[in-house]
């Protein structure tokens, strides 16, 4: 056993520098985002065409990314893709560099709906990469009523039959929407009212989780879910009979976006990569893989028919949408409290 371990350590030590030493004509692009954000083909083709190898590192939560970026003072990474609200904080902390749009020949491909967002009101720092809306999806064979909005989730026939995502701003927010309020209210009393409504919803909740919620509606574990676009896409491709509802109370949506950190060691490669994925056809390939809404208007025509209805924004949608933004610390703490109470109530 010992011998094998020693041999393995030696082998690893010999192999590691060997791997790294491959003839690198150009310095690597250090890409920092979640796992599985790009099809392998696109990454490989980028390296082949531009000569930049890619070092793909991952984080689990946006906050981890921010902590790492702070620790390295905006260095280490060349291109980061993360959620909207965290980018606002990164910009405020001075960790993001302004984009030189002259280096992005495909910049005009971006769908204007996703421009000038709250985290980057003048489009100085970011390029969107995929967007999602929170959607209700239900199985009409198992649900007796027609669901039109969040308020229908309180119906007593749905007892122990609903799955929701584990994002407290989204779930607390659906109660806020039922009350006719904004996702981003700082009014502690209003948030408390939403919390009271949520406790009433708790008996209907079977499941709270962030990943693979589509498996649970497909297997019959739950009859309805409140989920992200990618879950809805995957579930519908498997079972087209499921019904999609964009809640009448209002639609929450979020954008993922790419930015170049303030001290990126290799920003040239980052620009090259951004421009590469904004190419209409390649963008379409990425969004089909990712399962989120295409954020590049020029890519929409290239999305295959199978995915088209899921990955392009429906007409006349933008009027009823609201993004979840950063709120005051007190409001945030209140949110966390009503969320914990809601979970406890659901567990009873």
């Amino acid at each position: 056993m010992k011998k094998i371990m020693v041999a393995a350590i030696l082998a690893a030590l010999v192999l590691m520098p060997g791997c790294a030493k491959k003839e690198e004509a150009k310095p690597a692009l250090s890409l920092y985002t979640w796992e599985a954000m790009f099809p392998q083909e696109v990454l490989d083709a980028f390296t082949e065409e531009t000569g930049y190898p890619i070092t793909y590192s991952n984080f689990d939560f946006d906050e981890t990314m921010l902590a790492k970026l702070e620790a390295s003072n905006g260095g280490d990474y060349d291109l980061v893709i993360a959620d909207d609200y965290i980018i606002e904080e990164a910009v405020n902390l001075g960790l993001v560099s302004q984009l030189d749009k002259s280096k992005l020949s495909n910049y005009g491909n971006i769908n204007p709906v996703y421009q000038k967002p709250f985290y980057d009101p003048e489009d100085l720092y970011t390029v969107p990469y995929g967007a999602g809306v929170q959607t209700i999806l239900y199985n009409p064979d198992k649900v007796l009523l027609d669901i039109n909005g969040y308020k229908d989730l309180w119906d007593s026939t749905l007892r122990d039959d609903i799955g929701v995502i584990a994002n407290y701003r989204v779930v607390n927010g659906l109660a806020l929407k039922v009350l006719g309020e904004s996702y981003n209210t700082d009014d502690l009393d209003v948030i408390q009212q939403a919390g009271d409504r949520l406790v009433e919803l708790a008996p209907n909740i079977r499941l709270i989780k962030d990943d693979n919620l589509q498996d649970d509606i497909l297997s019959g574990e739950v009859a309805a879910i409140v989920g992200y676009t990618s879950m809805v896409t995957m579930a519908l491709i498997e079972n087209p009979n499921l019904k999609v509802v964009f809640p009448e109370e209002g639609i929450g949506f979020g954008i993922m976006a790419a930015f170049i950190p303030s001290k990126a060691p290799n920003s040239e490669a980052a620009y090259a990569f951004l421009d590469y994925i904004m190419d209409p056809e390649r963008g379409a390939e990425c969004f089909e893989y990712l399962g989120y809404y295409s954020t590049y208007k020029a890519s929409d025509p290239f999305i295959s028919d199978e995915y088209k209805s899921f990955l392009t924004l429906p007409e006349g949608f933008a009027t009823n949408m609201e993004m979840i933004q950063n709120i005051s610390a007190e409001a945030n703490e209140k949110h966390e409290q009503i969320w914990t109470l809601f979970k406890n109530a659901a567990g009873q």
Partner: protein
Amino acid sequence: MYLPIIVVVVYSFNESKLSSVWAGFSLKWYDELFRDKSMLSALGNSVLLALLSSGAAAVIGTLGAVGMSRAKLRGAKTIELIATVPIMAPEIILGMVFLAFFSLIGLPFGMLTLVIAHTSFCVPYILLLVKARLAGMDKSVSEAALDLGASELQAFFTITLPQIAPAIASGMFLAIAMSFDDVIISVFVTGVNTNTLPLKIYTQIKTGVTPKTNALCAIVFACSAILAAVSSRVGKKSA
């Protein structure tokens, strides 16, 4: 024990991307896996990290336990308590604190920070298991050896070490498993070039876990089974 693993392995051959649907036998996920270079280099990083940190922990933990059992040392209880903190404290806060600590003392993030952080939570396993074994172990044998003129080192290597070896081995098995599986601490102390395997697995939350990961687990499982079979063969021959 093996039931969930079998399920994971079986579903790695699933044509469908979803684990709730069985769409027929397919090898496509293995194909995808082997094309994903970052996945394979992450595997290499994880193996190296697990071996280095469990090795370091084995040395530190064993020596510590032996030293403490030999004589009543000042502060031994306190050190022991502090040493077990890394398995007591919630990983998330530990990861965050390590991040703050390393950037405070100016260590660059990479393999070194990973090894230090992992060693810190591997030590308690070795320490506790070796201590449990040393407690009440017959000391007269090693004392007799000393009386007969053996040096401390001789006594340690010929008498004590063979007796505590099973505890060290089981401690290391656990430590390797913990290191090989850790994501919450790693994610904070890793550097640009040192993605680990669990990081790859856990950070798919945006898109959902695909059978590609099942395929990877199946391969890791097969490799560790083979390694174990080989090592028990080798062990038998040398015995």
